[in-house]
């Protein structure tokens, strides 16, 4: 694990610029957690010209919906969910200054264009490594949309959360590079 970059959240524009597809990173600091319905509500507010319940600029959003915490746990299991479902919403949030996204699976063209234009990075966490990831969460609070249950908008503080840069702010794409390297057809 010694070849991992340690990065403190929130991400700076320089952090984003320096990160390249394939980099293995340990993230520490605050981030938001939100998935399908929370994104829908945020973008609905934007379209209606209303204020958001959270400040997006400079932030990182982790696409996840944790399982319920057992007594004594900070958070239940909390691995990433599939990111393409957030593709319709992410460009608007990136335009507002969202700098980092964490999920799993490749992002579409419109998201990549927004990442290039505004400077944002997309990390993948390991899907299904949810009990392991929960260990890196040191605090959790629901900040909005409590009625959505597992889909509520949350604020976490993480320490050494292991992620990999999947798509970077320069157009680098580890999904494409990785397949090119290992495909035998």
């Amino acid at each position, binding site marked *: 694990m010694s070849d991992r970059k340690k990065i403190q959240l929130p991400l700076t524009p320089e952090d984003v610029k320096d990160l390249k597809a394939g980099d293995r990173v340990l993230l520490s600091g605050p981030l938001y957690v939100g998935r399908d319905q929370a994104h829908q509500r945020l973008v609905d507010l934007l379209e209606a010209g209303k204020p958001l319940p959270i400040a997006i600029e400079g932030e990182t959003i982790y696409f996840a919906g944790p399982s*319920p915490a057992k007594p004594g746990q900070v958070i239940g299991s909390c691995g990433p*969910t599939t990111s393409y479902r957030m593709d319709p919403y992410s460009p608007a949030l990136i335009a507002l200054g969202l700098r980092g996204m964490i999920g*799993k699976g490749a992002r579409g063209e419109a998201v990549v264009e927004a990442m290039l234009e505004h400077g944002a990075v997309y990390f993948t966490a390991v899907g*299904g490594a*949810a*009990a392991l990831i929960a260990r890196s969460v040191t605090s959790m609070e629901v900040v909005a949309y409590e009625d959505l249950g597992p889909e509520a908008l949350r604020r976490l503080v993480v320490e050494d959360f292991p992620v990999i840069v999947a798509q970077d702010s320069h157009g680098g794409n*580890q999904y494409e590079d*990785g397949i090119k390297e*290992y495909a035998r*057809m």
Partner: protein
Amino acid sequence: MRVIPAERITEAIKDLAIRANYDLGEDVLTALKNGRDSEESPVGREILDQLLENAEIAAKERVPMCQDTGYAAVFVEIGHDAFIEGDIQAAVDEGVRQGYEEGYLRKSIVGDPLRRKNTGDNTPAALTVEFVPGDKVTVTIAPKGGGSENMSMARQFAPAVGRQGVIDFVVNRVKESGSNPCPPVVVGVGIGGTFDLCARLAKKSLMRDIGIRHPDPFYAELELEILEQVNNLGIGPMGLGGKVTALDVHVEYYPCHIASLPVAVNMQCHAARHKTAVI
């Protein structure tokens, strides 16, 4: 005739729902370890290491291995000489309700696909009842995650596409799914039946342990041929590139219409969660 109170089904489902989410199957552990040994990509190996460590934590701390504790896909096989006294769907749903509550499992079901209000207890289960010889009742639960389920596809082919057409369709489906279904996946394939039955065959094939081949050598060979082609795609663990894209391919078939060749693909993530009890 052996009479089995429906409460026995509830107890079994509750226990299986929790164990399926906490304890990675021995078949899956073995497959992940073998994958770890054969994977050439360093990132791929590290991902597989994380998954093995995750399985250990989940089993030891009694927590779900994945936050997506799934749709409860349940198969109940009732022996011809067994009689379940009571409402089977209600008994299964009650088991799901109790298991998901007591096991701190995520409630991931909305009561209506368009208005999307969470049912709050992960019910109802997606229940399939089948009849088999004997006087036992076999209950299987596969908590089915959304990421892998969303990559499913069914298609009605003309019979002329034949064996090669089936292979191409399945391999292409895995390719297009890329990183989304949490590879290395188990690929479930249904061939034949009617449109709806074909999809169910694909789902049912995922209840089989990894490494167990179809009893018909023709289909066993087909499974291995698809597996080899899938593992040549280069997708690898979590889609970041590598040799290990699938842990296994399972095929189930059924007689079909002279005009039809239905094929369905239903994928399972690398946890391939399924647990069975015999009552």
